[in-house]
Structure formats: structure tokens, C-alpha cells
């Protein structure tokens, strides 16, 4: 294609490359088709970065932005000496890691076991059902979670009592020590099926002759899973793990904590996003809210760049 275009150019204009403007005229249709959306994305995604100035000021409502008092890094200083923010940071990282590990282990396990089901009708039905929760909103999912965990008739308490594991209903959502795990398992419940899609594709791409060779050597089912299936999908696992490290400060989602958290578990449930919402919009401390938001974005970008570098070193697959 490139070649043909160059040839056409050579015919019409020997030696000289067509000028910038004449190329623009020739490609005017492509420009008209793309530029409105480019301006749109610049307006909504790039222009607001200008608001990061607030983080270096002590914002007072009513004053124009350039007449605000500049305070340098004072907001960031305050954040990192604030016990509340450090607790928020701890919660965020803990819930991210718990959600990440639980999601990966369950999705890989589910994909490997689903792959062992030979009846394609049953396999497909299970998959369809497993995708269902992905399409429900977090509003609905957290509603279902709190119903399932409720002390009155909640299915978790009912089953655990029937099995005599507990003697009276546990107030799951009322105690901080359970909260991180509830968020982790809520994530697993919602996304288990969805997360397996990529792993199933990776398993399907493994060369079947490897399995045949292993069978000849007398390998049983478990040895084949361990020595062929898992190593076969290892590149995909590594890439996805690295990619997910960039979300470390997302805390495994914002809505789960926002809806399931309550005054009783606030020391365990608040994440950076909720902190920004609370200080920034509800309490009107814009400067502090923006500072926390910048911290999150900058750390995420650094993590992604590091992850990309790590992926490059591990193999030739790259993310960006």
C-alpha cells in the first residue's frame, strides 16, 4: 500500500515530496472524519489536567484561579502526614492485592477445569451463566451481596448455620476484619466468567501435539495440566498480571467500597477514590482532593511504565 502511494506521488511530482498542505487537502475526508472526535477527547480528557493547579494552591471558592494563594507542595505534605490518608492508602493497596490474587487464581483454575469438560453444550451453558454477573451494575451486585450476607435470612449465614460452622449469624458487613475479603470475593463473583475468556483462548491456542506427546510418555491428566496447560498460558498470565499492577491504587474498584462500606467499617473501607470524593466534592476541600487524585494518577503511570519495561525484559511482548 505504502509502496503504491509513493509510486503515484513519484509520477505526479518527480523528486519533491508532496507538501504538508497538499497532503492535507488530499486527505481532507480522513481529517473531517477524525478531527471532531480528537477535539472531543482533548476537551474532555486533556483540558481538565489544567485543574491540577488546584493541588498547589489553597483554593477558596469565589476567587479566580490565578488569584488563589499558591502553597507549593503543602497539600502533598499534609496528605503524607495525615493518619487518615495513610490508612486510606493501606486499604486501597490491600484491597487491590487481595482482589488481584483472588481473581487470578479463581479465573485460571476455572478456565483449566472448564477446559476438561468435553460436552460442548454443557461447557457453553456454564460459560453463558458465568458471564451473567459481569453485565449487572455494581449497584445491583452490591445489593445482592448485602442481601446474601444479611443477618436476617442471608444465604451465607443460613448455609453456614445449617452446616454448624457457626452457631449464630455473623454481621459480615459490620466488622472491619471481613471487609477486604468481602470486596475480593464480590469482585470474584462478578468477574469470574469474564476473566476466564482470555485464559480459555490461551488454552485453546496450545499445540495439541504437546498433549499427545505427553500421553505417549504416560502423563496423566494432572501432569498434563501442570506441565503443559499452565506453562502454555504462562505468557498470558504474566502479561495480565503486569498490566493489572497499574491498577494498584484503584483498590479493586470504587463502587464496591462506596456501597458496601458504612460508618462501622470506615477504617477498612475507605479508598483513595472515596477520599477524593469526600474531601473534594462533599467537604469542598478541592485542593486536597485534587492532590490525592494527582498522587494516584502519577503512581499509576509510573507503575505502568515499569510494568511495560519488565514485560519487555521478560520477552518480546509489550503492552504499550
Amino acid at each position, binding site marked *: 500500500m*505504502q509502496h503504491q502511494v509513493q509510486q503515484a506521488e513519484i509520477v505526479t511530482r518527480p523528486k519533491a515530496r508532496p507538501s504538508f498542505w497538499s497532503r492535507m487537502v488530499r486527505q481532507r475526508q480522513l481529517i473531517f472524519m477524525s478531527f471532531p472526535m480528537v477535539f472531543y477527547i482533548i476537551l*474532555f480528557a486533556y*483540558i481538565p489536567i489544567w485543574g491540577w493547579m488546584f493541588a498547589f494552591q489553597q483554593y477558596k471558592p469565589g476567587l479566580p484561579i490565578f488569584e488563589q494563594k499558591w502553597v507549593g507542595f503543602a497539600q502533598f505534605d499534609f496528605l503524607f502526614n495525615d493518619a487518615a490518608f495513610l490508612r486510606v492508602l493501606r486499604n486501597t493497596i490491600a484491597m487491590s492485592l487481595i482482589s488481584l490474587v483472588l481473581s487470578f487464581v479463581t479465573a485460571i483454575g476455572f478456565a483449566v477445569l472448564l477446559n476438561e469438560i468435553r460436552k460442548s453444550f454443557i461447557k457453553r451453558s456454564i460459560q453463558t451463566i458465568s458471564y451473567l454477573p459481569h453485565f449487572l451494575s455494581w449497584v445491583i451486585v452490591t445489593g445482592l451481596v448485602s442481601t446474601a450476607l444479611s443477618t436476617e435470612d442471608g444465604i451465607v449465614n443460613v448455609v453456614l448455620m445449617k452446616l454448624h460452622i457457626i452457631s449464630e449469624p455473623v454481621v459480615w458487613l459490620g466488622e472491619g476484619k471481613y471487609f477486604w475479603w468481602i470486596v475480593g470475593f464480590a469482585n470474584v463473583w462478578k468477574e469470574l466468567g469474564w476473566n476466564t475468556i482470555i485464559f480459555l483462548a490461551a488454552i485453546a491456542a496450545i499445540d495439541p501435539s504437546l498433549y499427545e506427546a505427553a500421553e505417549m510418555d504416560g502423563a496423566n491428566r494432572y501432569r498434563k495440566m501442570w506441565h503443559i496447560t499452565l506453562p502454555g498460558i504462562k505468557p498470558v498470565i504474566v502479561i495480565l498480571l503486569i498490566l493489572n499492577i497499574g491498577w494498584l491504587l484503584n483498590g479493586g474498584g470504587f463502587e464496591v467500597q462506596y456501597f458496601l462500606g458504612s460508618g462501622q467499617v470506615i477504617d477498612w473501607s475507605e479508598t483513595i477514590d472515596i477520599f477524593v470524593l469526600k474531601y473534594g466534592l462533599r467537604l469542598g476541600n478541592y485542593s486536597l482532593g485534587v492532590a490525592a487524585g494527582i498522587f494516584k494518577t502519577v503512581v499509576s503511570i509510573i507503575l505502568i511504565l515499569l510494568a511495560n519495561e519488565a514485560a519487555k525484559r521478560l520477552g518480546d511482548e509489550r503492552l504499550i
Partner: protein
Amino acid sequence: MQAVKSRFKPEPFLFHTFNYLLMLFIVIVTLYPFLNTLAISFNSGVDTTRGGIYLWPRVWTLKNYEAVFLTGHVFDAFWVSVARTTIGTALGVVLTAMVAYTISRREFMFRKLITIIFVLTLYFSAGLIPSYFLVKELNLLNTFLVYILFPGATAGLISGFNMLVIRTYISSLPESLIESAKIDGAGDFRVFVSVVFPLCAPVLATISLFIAVGQWNTWFDTFIFASSRQNLSTLQYELIKLLSSTTNFNANPNLTSTAAKDIAARITPLSIRAAITIVASVPILFVYPFLQRHFVAGLQLGSVKE
């Protein structure tokens, strides 16, 4: 051969029994909360408070659904949700595909620049407060337009991820189709409309589903940008108001007719919540199984490059 087949092998049998039981467990855990809510939504509210409703209603009634649609704001909110989903999805998918086409053209001079501008948006965001001020400056607070325009995590006109998925698909189309249309005198816009767009049907179905699910399920933009206008409230937002408030549904001042009051006397927040949950989730649950083949392929295309 016959002998081999009939010989009993304990290992595969045990494994498959265990595996099928585990799958059954996963299916039950996945479906139970939803089926339980369905049962509660069809059960008489007063009876539900006595407990013991699991998978099947004890006292059948449609009163909960009547209450949802006759009283309160759910009916209006339902239509706002439908409007934002249809308009947002139709506009979003066409515009995303159009940009994706332009950056799939190797000769396009701004191809690299535009790709970088969109890819970067995948990795950072300006944050909540700056975005709030932008929306405020654009006079979009408390307008329907903010639902279509604001690029949240899931909604918005165009997302870099969706665009890259479509671009990958377009790049896999045979170049000769586009070439021959151009030789016949078609410009890029014409090529996009009559050749590329129809050929992209599978991937566009996937992206439409993604955008529609995002539009239908989001509540955050209503909460942040439009919470002071009741007529802009969406289904998800109504559900939040019910979940977060302990105020009794009966206290709704909008109950005017005696019929509505009569209904309100016989329903409880729990059963109303169940009914709205079903109303808010059923439309999407009817669509996704039909698109399953496409979105599975689309997701693989987007994630595992080359």
C-alpha cells in the same frame, strides 16, 4: 476397542464427578442471588418479612411491580435510562468506528498522532474534581447531554480501548476490498460507509454491547452532575436512592391516587428493591447471550495482540 471402552477407569470417573460438582457449585453460586431476588420480587411484601423465601415465591403477587411503575419516579427513570442507552450507543459506535477507520489507513498523515492521543487516555485521567469543573464551565451540569458526552470509566462517546479493538478488526479486512472501491472512485467517507462499516458488523455488535452496558449501568454521572434534577434520574440512580435510604417507600409524597396508596400499604422496601433490581437487570440479560460469540472473539482481539 470394545474392551477398552467398557473397562471401568476410576481416575477419570472420580475427576469428572468432582469437576461437574464444582461446576454445579459455581453455577448455583452465580445464579442463586439473582433467582432469590426474582422470587422476592414476585412475593407479597408482607409475607417476605416473615423470612424463608429462597427460590420460589410463597404468596404470588404482581403488586411490587405495580408499585414500582405506578408510584415514585421509577417509570420516568426507566425512560431516561432507555434514552441515554440508545442515543449513547448509536452515536458512540458510529463515531468510534469512523475514527478507527481513519487510523487504520496507512497513508493517513495524522495516524500516529491520533493513535497516541487516544492510547494515552487509557492510562491516565485528570481526576474527578477537574472534570467536575470542566463540566460546570461547559454548562453541562444538570443536562441530558452530559450523559452522552462525559467520558466516564464506562460511558462516553468514544473510548480508546473500544477504538483499538475496532481498528484491529478493520486491519484484518482484505485491503483489496478498500482498494477496489477507491479505484471505482469512492472517497474515504464513502469507503467507510458502504464497505468497511457493514463488514465490521461482528465487532460493532461487541462494542455496541460494551457501550450499552456502560450507559445502562452507570450511576456516577447522575450522582455527580445531575442529581438535583429529578427528571434526569436514571434507573440505577433510583435504585441507589432506595438502597441507601432507610426512608420508607410509603412516605413517598408523590402518592396521589388512592389506588397508589392502597398498593403502598402492602409493599415493603425489600420487595420494591427486588422489583427494581429485576427491572434494571433484565433488559441486558436478554441481550448478552445472543452476542456471546461476538464479544468473546472481540475481547480476545483486543487483549492478545498479534
